[in-house]
């Protein structure tokens, strides 16, 4: 059978090209690898190499022809003993005929398949805490340490790595005592090399280990964000489900106190943007413990955003053998009927203080602590707003493309008719974090701003 040489596609975007020059003429012998023609694409002039051996029987598209569609036969290659007469005449191209034919099996080419609906996320409820369970006052710091220790006792594949996690006992003392209990094999001090050890952790998770990677702060994880996004978050999808990254990246996030621009940034919205990640940001010690244990057991890559200011704060933690909370479920911190106030992480501090002031003014505020940024528990938010008809969101991150703006968009689109006032989102100011004490205070949200926002949406101001 004579072989048709087709106009090749030579770049991801090429649909047609110019046949600028034939380097072989009819009757010439051709071996694999011989350059037979030159083609000008949208990007460059490319050489066309022969793939098969034979004799160039007939040139179907003359040199100098412009706008030759991809897949048009441009010449015929004869095998031993074949004559040029047997070759087909030039015919109009049917570009992409073959790929389309195959694609049709899945969906007719003329009517593109409708975009399937995204699966609806449904969060599990919190476990019941049996009546009479002892509540133990615990700092967030202790809760996080207990969560890691419990999971490391439970599963030999769990280990923790990061800067100063072992001998120094943790830059913020979150890993205190772990080296003594689990030894240097499972509590690994790394060099200061975020990009590298994030990748090493992800590689180890590909092989089935369950690393907890501590970043001294998430500000330094910027060095590692390529590995987190491109290697951890996307591999399960790119591998068609064969393998993924069961890994937890944790550490303090957001502003601490007076550490200025490079050490004071909230990454909730950044990581919340990425499909393939789960993003957790607890406020209370109980949530920190229950959610970190869930994160370590979860087979997906988890970003676990803590806060330095919260580390030392004390909350009640139920004394239970295995206290695990569902990732993706918001917690109603306080029920109310007049207005919904949504926050997460350190943002809850403003919400809780504002609520106390507003209560004194006679307003019954419902506070929702998101706890998880992705997947986001819209069911809880929507149900609350349907009841209160008003929504204010508070966070410390930058205002543009914030978590609050994402929530506001969904709420106005899905339950517009339930809203009695525009949604107000409160965020940090749109500036790098200043150092001066007075400016830093101005750059962060304030309780007064939250109070004003709630008064505005309830038309009390």
């Amino acid at each position: 059978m004579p072989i048709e040489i087709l106009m090749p596609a030579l770049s991801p975007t090429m649909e047609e090209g110019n046949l600028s020059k034939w380097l072989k003429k009819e009757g010439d012998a051709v071996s694999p690898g011989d350059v037979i023609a030159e083609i000008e694409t949208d990007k460059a002039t490319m050489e066309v190499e022969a793939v098969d051996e034979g004799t160039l029987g007939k040139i179907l598209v003359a040199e100098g022809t412009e706008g030759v569609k991809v897949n048009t036969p441009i010449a015929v290659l004869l095998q031993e003993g074949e004559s040029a007469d047997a070759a087909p005449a030039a015919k109009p191209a049917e570009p992409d005929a073959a790929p389309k034919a195959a694609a049709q099996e899945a969906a007719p080419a003329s009517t593109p398949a409708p975009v399937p609906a995204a699966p609806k996320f449904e969060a599990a409820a919190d476990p019941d805490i049996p009546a009479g369970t002892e509540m133990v006052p615990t700092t967030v710091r202790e809760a996080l340490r207990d969560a890691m220790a419990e999971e490391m006792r439970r599963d030999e594949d769990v280990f923790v790595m990061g800067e100063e996690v072992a001998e120094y006992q943790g830059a913020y003392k979150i890993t205190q005592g772990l080296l003594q209990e689990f030894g240097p094999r499972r509590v690994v001090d790394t060099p200061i090399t975020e990009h590298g050890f994030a990748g090493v952790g992800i590689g180890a998770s590909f092989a089935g280990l369950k690393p907890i990677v501590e970043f001294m702060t998430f500000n330094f994880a910027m060095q590692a964000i390529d590995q987190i996004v491109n290697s951890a978050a996307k591999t399960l999808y790119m591998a068609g489900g064969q393998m993924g990254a069961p890994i937890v990246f944790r550490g303090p996030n957001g502003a601490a106190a007076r550490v200025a621009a490079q050490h004071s940034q909230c990454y909730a919205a950044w990581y919340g943007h990425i499909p393939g990640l789960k993003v957790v940001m607890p406020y209370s010690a109980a949530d920190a413990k229950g959610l970190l244990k869930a994160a370590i057991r979860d087979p997906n890559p988890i970003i676990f955003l803590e806060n330095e200011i919260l580390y030392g704060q004390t909350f009640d933690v139920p004394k239970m053998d295995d206290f695990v909370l569902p990732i993706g479920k918001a917690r109603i911190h306080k029920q109310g009927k007049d207005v919904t106030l949504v926050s997460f992480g350190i943002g809850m501090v403003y919400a809780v203080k504002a609520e106390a002031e507003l209560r004194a003014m006679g307003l019954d505020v419902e506070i929702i602590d998101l706890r998880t940024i992705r997947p986001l528990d819209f069911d809880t938010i929507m149900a609350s707003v349907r009841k209160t008809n008003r929504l204010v969101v508070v966070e410390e991150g930058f205002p543009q493309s914030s978590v609050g703006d994402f929530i506001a968009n969904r709420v106005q689109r899905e339950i517009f008719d339930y809203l009695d006032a525009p949604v107000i989102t409160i965020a940090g100011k749109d500036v790098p974090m200043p150092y001066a004490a007075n400016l830093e205070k101005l750059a962060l949200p304030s309780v007064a701003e939250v109070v004003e926002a709630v008064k505005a949406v309830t038309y009390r101001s």
Partner: protein
Amino acid sequence: MATNARKTSARSRADGKAQPALKTPPPASFTKEQDLKAYRDMLLIRRFEEKAGQLYGMGFIGGFCHLYIGQEAVVTGMAMAIKEGDQMITAYRDHGHMLAMDMDPRGVMAELTGRRGGYSRGKGGSMHMFSKEKNFYGGHGIVGAQVPLGTGLAFANKYRGNDSVSLTYFGDGAANQGQVYESFNMASLWKLPVIYVIENNRYAMGTAVTRSSAETNFSQRGVSFRIPGIQVDGMDVRAVKSASDLAVEWCREGNGPIILEMETYRYRGHSMSDPAKYRSKDEVQKMRSEHDPIEQVKARLLDSKWATEDDLKAIDKEVRDIVADSADFAQTDPEPDPSELYTDVLI
């Protein structure tokens, strides 16, 4: 370069043990079976890649497609030295690596055409393909990112106390990424069983190594980290095999990482859309006619009378049939079902 390594390693290490010097070993002596296997395996990669190039030209393969033609001896020789459980990871010029790890040509080609029978069910493409079953960990699109990942595979081996080795491949271009050196440091510090295989094909996309690299002897890039390295003729599968044997043994004995710089060459452009104007035709032609990895084995097989022209033609036919079958499958297998859009984002 071996001298340099000796000098560095002669100093006592923190653990008090001096590192022995490493020299490039002479090419392995192959048996008839080994030569025939090397010939067949390299030919399969070459024919597969030629077919991929053809399918790209026909519009069946989209996006970026980086062919391995010319470099076949590297993965083939390395694969001949490893055992079950050893892992492999590389960047986006990955089709040859997958075939060398015994992955099914149908599944690889169907991934290139974005079909449901592809290794990643059509969702990864040429640059992102994996087979957990065959211990192939990708297929990574970000230059250099596979180096910490491969180091992490070695970390897991050491953690588990098994004797598996991670073969972490990267090119001369990736060798200038910072994360490579972050990985070198940790791998050496923790004595991780990882072989860094630097495939020096002389061009990082269109930039010659001499224009991008202050030190072009890549085998010595580990000196600051006390990682020994050797340069290997990456066009000679026997040289690759003996170097690979040495490296695998080095790692299995608990000596930590090692670097193999494979001096190789790619015949085609960086990707399908690269006209390769940055080098002369003569340069390419000279490599092809004087150093071609497949022709070297072929000549040896014929000279030693281990095979006749007819025997080799029969191998060629077998290989062509496998490749044709994979191409047929890759063209007729359906695209992924639209419902696959939302699967495998999270478990």
